[in-house]
């Protein structure tokens, strides 16, 4: 019984076809990775699922409901959340309030006090607590990414899209973020990770979907996908199949 079902979704922008009949199915509790080259349509797919755009054709079903043309805020209420590839914090709100506002309006409607408590805990979890009273403009890129993550989590969603959450992170920072993701997965949250780089999700994802040119190219476990001839040829290159 899948939690998220995307079928036959097409999205065009003027002359450009970003999504050309995408099929995706995500079961509750899964950690799915979506990889593909730039322009494959990964972020557009997230945008369509989240309601930033409506598809030209196709259907999106979440938790049994048809959300194809549902406004974004209602999808959030239903339990969908996401991080943005380039962080989009609320610049006039303090870090803690950035996270708190998501708790106030996410899947539940919480009052200010309770929301701020949840925000505090989340900030501690992503190790951003000491920046709670600062404003986003004084945060580093790494800290902004953590803020994105904390804000998405504050919604207490059922399914979260992480859009290249690891981009630009190395070493300790990368390990921190990935361990948070792993914890969430172990706690039962359904996670869809969009990634550029195979290595990051190879050990994390149960299933990987490869996208190219607005369509699903291949799908399977990480090892299946990395040895799939089509994937190797068009995206990964020989090196991966030799691993």
């Amino acid at each position, binding site marked *: 019984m899948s939690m998220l079902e995307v079928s036959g979704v097409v999205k065009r922008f003027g002359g450009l076809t970003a999504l050309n009949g995408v099929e995706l199915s995500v079961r509750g509790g899964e950690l799915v990775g979506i990889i593909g080259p730039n322009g494959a349509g990964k972020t557009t797919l997230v945008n369509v699922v989240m309601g930033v755009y409506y598809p030209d054709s196709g259907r999106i079903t979440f938790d049994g409901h048809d959300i194809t043309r549902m406004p974004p*805020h209602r999808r959030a209420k239903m339990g969908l959340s996401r991080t943005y590839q380039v962080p*989009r914090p609320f610049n006039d709100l303090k870090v803690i309030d950035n996270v708190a506002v*998501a708790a106030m309006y996410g899947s539940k409607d919480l009052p200010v006090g309770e929301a701020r408590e949840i925000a505090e805990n989340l900030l501690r979890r992503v190790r951003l607590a000491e920046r709670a009273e600062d404003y986003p403009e004084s945060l580093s890129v790494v800290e902004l990414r953590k803020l994105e993550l904390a*804000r998405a989590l504050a919604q207490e969603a059922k399914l979260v899209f992480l859009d290249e959450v690891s981009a630009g992170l190395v070493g300790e920072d990368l390990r921190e973020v990935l361990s948070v993701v792993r914890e969430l997965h172990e706690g039962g949250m359904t996670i869809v990770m969009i990634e550029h780089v195979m290595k990051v999700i190879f050990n994390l994802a149960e299933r990987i979907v490869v996208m190219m040119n607005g369509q699903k190219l291949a799908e399977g476990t990480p090892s299946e996908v990395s040895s799939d001839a089509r994937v190797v040829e068009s995206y990964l290159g020989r090196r991966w199949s030799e691993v």
Partner: protein
Amino acid sequence: MKLDLGSTFIRAIAVAVVLAIVAAASTIMGTYPTLIAITIMVFFVYSLSWSLLANTGMVSLGQALFFALGAYAYGIFAISYGMNPIAALFVGPVMGALAGLAVGFISARLRDWYVGIFTFALTPAGYALAVSSQLQPWTAGAVGLATPRFPLGSSLWLPFATVLAFAAYLVIMIIKKRRIGYALSAINNDETAAGTVGINARLYKTIVFGISGYMAALAGAMFVALYTSYIAPDYFGYPDISYSVWPIFYSMIGGMGSPEGVLLGTVLLDPLETAIRSWLSGISVVGGNLALVIFGLLLVVVLLKAPKGIYGYVAKYVESRKARARRAAEAGTKAEVSTGQ
């Protein structure tokens, strides 16, 4: 809305004190200063209504629509329907709220500058209605409407206005502190991201327009009841856009990010503007226009050099000092911890 200089309580007390001092000083100084103080209160409420919208990402260039609606509603209810003027003062602005909801409903769907154009375009329409022959029996057309004396001892007018001004301030503070305030800030910064976290931007924008409409209309009603006792169609900010520009002016120069900034702008500029305008009008018939040129220049300069207004400028400075102090304290603690190893 980035300002957190002190707790809500302290800020409220400060504002109450400033308002009280302005009222008291003006009363002591005489009739004319008292009248100016009344306009300060009126324009404070009016400017708050504008900055509420601006801080939700909607720039209204025709706020005078609601201002004039409130003025006319007050006049028409009191005269044509015989309502007690004190009641009319509060009931009239409901028309402003309704108009605000209608305008907000459309504006919520529009991108930045379209909202400005839309609200700007509504003011000539309001003017046309006010002078139209069809509504002449109620509005007295281009001639204007004279209203009866407000049924309160005239020495109580300024205190009354002051209380209303403070009440408007409290409303804004309450909005800021509750959930809705956070949502409005988020909408202002990034409407799409706000939608992602579950905020119904369109609904909130519409509601905010309704509140703003009431406040602006209340200001208009106050303007008539406690100051001019006269309603003219040019209150719609057409053809002279002054009535739409003043709230923008006071808010932006004072610092629209916070109601205290708006107060600063109004208290500083309202008397200044009145003084300069009457001085120049005394010198020449078109002195008033010259004064407006000066203020237009001031607006342009402020927009270019200090877009966050005086208050914003100061607040930013204080905030960066605080942040630096915080970071220095952390660095100190971290150093202790590592040497303590």
